[in-house]
């Protein structure tokens, strides 16, 4: 990128413009300052580590959801996929055939869990591609169906991890960074590069922005969407594995309502439900906003129900402001 012949705005205006385009980061900043002043325990490195670990589960799935939603699709089955993957991860390591593997028994278990996630995502994507049924309906069906499979598989009870190395994993840190947070940050960077720098990412915007134009440009839209469903399946499964390490167990109700939290985070981050618009920087902000709000209100001892009320109101308020703002800037655009 050696040539830039576009006019660049003045240096003082740049951060402000950036905030205008990513209003969620302004919101993150405000609540960060607010909770730092309002509570004693918020501004603390250990609390920050907490927030990062707490948000990593929803955050990982939100990365995949951003891709899927930029395509103009949605995936409601992520919570159920997470639960099934977690069940596999905890169960497979205790299979008799791996009994002599020592700590290595975790390896096939995690692989199995991730493969389950990828396979379920592929199935979702394949059905959307081949039948043309709306992704909302396909993944709504998958959400119910997969959750049913979780209960069949676990027999309505929880699996407990017998290998303590598995549950200890979540407590590991590298320097000040907990491993779980590190995995989330690494995935964030990877998906950000995928979306902003690669052909696949470019095609994602084209497919969501104007599917017909994408077809006319020779983009194979069906396979493209399927890949994104596989990515979100993988990330949901990874999230399930990490969550089960935190709990040392997999419960059949794991990941309930996660699809709603994830969609909230992604939409807060500026991704459009209709597709064609959004980025990982925004999604990361949306994830942090939810994490900080839940953590901060918890520290202020606000009862959990109020957290829902406030988050719901904020979601609608932010989108309303975004709509007002965008209507003004796109005044000349006749779509």
């Amino acid at each position, binding site marked *: 990128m050696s040539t830039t012949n576009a006019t660049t705005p003045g240096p003082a205006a740049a951060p402000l413009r950036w905030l205008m385009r990513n209003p969620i980061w302004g919101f993150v900043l405000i609540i960060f300052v607010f909770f730092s002043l309002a509570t004693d325990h918020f501004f603390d490195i250990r609390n920050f580590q907490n927030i990062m670990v707490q948000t990593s589960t929803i955050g990982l799935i939100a990365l995949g959801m951003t891709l899927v939603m930029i395509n103009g699709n949605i995936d409601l089955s992520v919570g159920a996929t997470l639960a099934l993957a977690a069940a596999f991860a905890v169960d497979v390591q205790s299979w008799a055939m791996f009994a002599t593997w020592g700590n290595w028994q975790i390896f096939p278990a995690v692989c199995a869990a991730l493969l389950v996630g990828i396979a379920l995502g592929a199935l979702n994507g394949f059905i959307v591609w081949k039948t043309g049924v709306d992704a909302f309906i396909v993944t709504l069906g998958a959400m119910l169906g997969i959750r049913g499979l979780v209960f069949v598989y676990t027999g309505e009870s929880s699996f407990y991890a017998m290998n303590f190395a598995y549950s200890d994993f979540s407590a590991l840190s590298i320097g000040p960074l907990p491993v779980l947070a590190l995995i989330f940050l690494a995935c964030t960077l990877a998906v950000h590069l995928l979306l902003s720098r690669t052909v696949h990412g470019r095609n994602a915007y*084209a497919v969501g922005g104007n599917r017909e134009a994408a077809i006319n*440009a020779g983009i194979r839209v069906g396979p493209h969407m399927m890949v994104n469903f596989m990515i979100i399946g993988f990330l949901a499964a990874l999230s399930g594995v990490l969550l089960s390490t935190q709990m040392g167990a997999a419960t059949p109700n794991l990941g309930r309502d996660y699809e709603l939290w994830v969609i909230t985070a992604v939409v807060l981050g500026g991704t459009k439900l209709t597709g064609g618009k959004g980025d990982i920087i925004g999604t990361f902000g949306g994830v942090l906003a939810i994490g900080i709000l839940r953590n901060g209100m918890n520290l202020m001892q606000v009862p959990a129900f109020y957290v829902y009320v406030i988050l719901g109101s904020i979601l609608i308020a932010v989108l309303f402001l975004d709509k007002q703002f965008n209507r003004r800037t796109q005044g000349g655009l006749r779509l």
Partner: protein
Amino acid sequence: MTETTTQPALRLQDIVKTFPGVRALDGVSFEVMPGEVHALLGENGAGKSTLMKVLAGMYQPDEGLIFIGGGQVRVANPMEAKAQGIVLIHQELSLAPEMSAAENIYLGELPCKSFGRVDWKALYARSNAILERLRCRFRADALVADLSIANQQMVEIARALTVDARVVIFDEPTASLTDAEKVVLFDIITDLKAQGVGIVYISHRMDEIFTLSDRITVLRDGAYRGTLTTAETDEDAVTRLMIGRSLDLSQRVAAGEVGEVVLEARGLSCAPLYEDVSFQVRAGEVVGFYGLVGAGRTEIAETLFGLRTPNAGTILIDGKEVTIGSPQDAIRLGISLVPENRKEQGLVLGMNCRDNMTLPQVGDLTTGPFVSGGAEVSIFDQYRDRLAIKTPSWRQPVGFLSGGNQQKIVIGKWLSMQPRVLIVDEPTRGIDVGSKSEIHNLIRQLAGQGYAVIVISSEMPEVLHVADRIVAMYHGRVMRSFNAGEVTEDSLVQAISGIGNGKAA
């Protein structure tokens, strides 16, 4: 104007309507007498639809007056137009498919009993009475989705008859009707006429206009060109008025050497859209496909680009038979399509100019796993200069560009792929007059550079201006093909209207 004792049912005086960049109606006057069928003629883009939308209250004119039955009125919205007795029967049907015919006929005005309950008995009785008057064979309780297109159109007409109409406007009513159904429609129009209703009849088909109408008004480029009494005129006179300007072909950019045949179609069919279409396109020439909307031209382009599967015939590239099963195949074979509808089919409006232009080839512009922005910018710069695209920066979303510049982005997108065949469907639709000739010259230049170019157009000046050869189509068939030097406007109009179809190409 003919002075009569009766007042016109409807009179428009000096209507002006402008849209950003386009003067769609430029001082148009028009009147319909009670019991008269007044045909409105003009090429696509001449302003017929805009005029009708002004009448029906969908658009507000910038200047000019509307009189109904002698009194001046303002038609602020479609409901008011209906209350004044002006009914527009749309070319595109606007029915609710999952409701019954009766519910559609009385949509918004369902007869009511107490507590807002629908009076189904009255509804069906009234609807059936109207349908009988229209000689329809289906009952009012039939689901609209189950009806044929022609019968759906009858429902639309029935809707018009629920009000005490003074003026009924038919916008291309026969486009989707069979001959038998047309006869019924013409009977209905004759009935309405006998009842003293003023009829505005918009159509491209000369034969219909001459059987039905009393007078003919011609629009061109948004301006009034004259009114003729049908009994005293003939097709030639109307055609002349429609085309108007004498074409100045001396200004057109000379093409280069015409080379070998690049693309050939033999007996290509995609029934019922088009059948048995054969043509050749040589390197360095522009072949124009001219015909009415629905003549099957766009569908041929879509077949060549792999978006439709033909059910008979062959396509040859450089004399070798090829199968084009997808746009990917077409692109590989060097065929590119600038679609009819650039906003819906050609561009991702929210995406910036550069990304739109490199969309089909971005996979070849990578270094390692990442797209090389620099390579993209250099391609964009190259085609921005070559096509004189006006944009402040490549970062500008294409939605903000003018129609002409948007079209150039689409053309640049395909030129940067180094195609051999360039198909341009309606190259100047929705583009202002100034940019039109620029696009025309560009197409001529491209042919001069050795591309084989197909231009599909519904505008006669356009095909006459850009094409070396013209293929005239009517109802999915090639009627004739002309060389640019020997074509006359009359023969073209006749070929695409289905008149004198004895002469095969």
